[in-house]
């Protein structure tokens, strides 16, 4: 399976697909959880480019704002763009981004090289949603209003496991796609 995955990624068009999806997803994830924002009038002290790290960054590093959502230890300013730096969040975003990127590349390969069409695209898409929503319960609740949900104790508990759920769904979808390709090519 792993060698099959690497051989697919050996072609430029597929690793490029994975890379593009990875970057887009990481940006969407960080924006959805308000760790990447665009804002004006944030104060005169903000220059065009600056990095600020909190003095007590060790204390903040693993402090949770919500399940699987961690405090920022600093901020990077680039014009009106602000990135709140949280190492665990970036790690999570990167992990999910890699899985989604790989899923995208493998799907593209199945479709293009083997003309395989199936429901795996849908599974992969569903897999990405919980992770984006994971930060929404506590930190971007308007998103929940837009969706039209009312939070109950049960839903809040389930919500807390959206990130691992995403990882599991994406991993399962990738495995399933690779198995299909292997069967087809044998």
């Amino acid at each position: 399976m792993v060698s099959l995955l690497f051989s697919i990624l050996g072609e430029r068009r597929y690793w490029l697909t994975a890379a593009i999806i990875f970057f887009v997803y990481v940006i969407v994830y960080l924006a959805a959880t308000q760790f990447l924002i665009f804002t004006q009038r944030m104060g005169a002290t903000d220059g065009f480019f600056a990095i600020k790290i909190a003095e007590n960054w060790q204390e903040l590093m693993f402090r949770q704002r919500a399940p699987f959502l961690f405090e920022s230890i600093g901020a990077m300013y680039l014009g009106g763009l602000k990135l709140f730096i949280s190492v665990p969040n970036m790690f999570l975003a990167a992990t999910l981004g890699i899985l989604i990127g790989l899923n995208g590349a493998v799907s593209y390969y199945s479709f293009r090289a083997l003309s395989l069409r199936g429901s795996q695209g849908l599974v992969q898409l569903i897999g990405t949603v919980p992770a984006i929503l994971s930060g929404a319960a506590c930190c971007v609740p308007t998103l929940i209003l837009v969706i039209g949900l009312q939070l109950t104790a049960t839903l809040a508990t389930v919500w807390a496991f959206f990130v691992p759920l995403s990882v599991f769904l994406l991993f399962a979808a990738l495995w399933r796609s690779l198995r299909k390709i292997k069967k087809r090519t044998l």
Partner: protein
Amino acid sequence: MGNQVIYFFLFVIIAGVVFFYFSNRNAAPIEVAPEVRKQLKESAPLISQDRDVYFSLLEKSAISGGPPKDGIPSIDEPIYTSAEEADEWLLSQDIVFGIDYKGLTAAYPQRIVVWHEIVNVKIGGEDVSLTYCPLTGTAIGFKGEYASGISSEFGVSGKLINSNLLMYDRKSDSYWPQILGTAITDPAKGIRLEEFPVVWTTWEKWKQAHPDTLILSQDTGFFRNYGENGDPYGSYVRENRGYYSSDRLLFEPIHTDSRLHPKEVVVGIRDAEGRTLAILKNKLRTEKIIEASLGDSTVVVTYDQELDFYKARIKETDTWINAFDAMWFSWAAFYPNTELVQ
């Protein structure tokens, strides 16, 4: 070989999930000092059976809003700047919570406080806390000393009752719903916090009334989106107000009352005996002065055009009584038998 790699990845993912889930560096459980427990045992009032049942109902209805304890971090060492500096980033129509208490005149921008919900301040050696719950639209000032010799800061428990902020105090770890201002769990159960006035107004109006005011700086010790569009619930400035005007609630309250739109702003007044009164804020704006009954007493609420706020007093004794803005649904949920002037 291929399967071994997959098992390895699975192991890494599971280990990562477990690590992230248990890597919570938030507030450690509070060890209540024996002398605090003893003092509270002596200070806590006897609670009637009805009130005890009510407190139990509230405690049972507390649900997690998502963040863990202190996941919404209170500001414990506020830094202030001048009005001129704040003008560089704060809009004149931005909401601020103003306090003018024991020599400290300061404004706390809603767009900062929305991310922290509690600002713990020391004024002349006295602990006071400015508290704000975005989901119920309530800003209330509490004094930290709630029993003889026991004074505390407050933190955000992460739980909500009727969508309202459930605070905890850092001395006894008792839980205090903000609107109630009374502890519903031991060891402080039944104790009511003293309050001080907090003015809900705009930056422009506050600045005109208090030109020398200080203002809470964005340097809170935490990194959040304190910008114009930073409020995660909506906006009091933009036309699209989001949660603040929507008729939808994020959490189901214990009791609902359809006499008003759930987010309609009422002026809530309650006394130590549990008597309550709500006045439609827009009616107060029109009539300027409203007199209404609060049990055997009469409350006079006077509208202050300059601040678009009000003051309330008990007519018979000419004493100050706290009155604060609240979204109707939350007031009615905590006080189902409230009088309503509309």
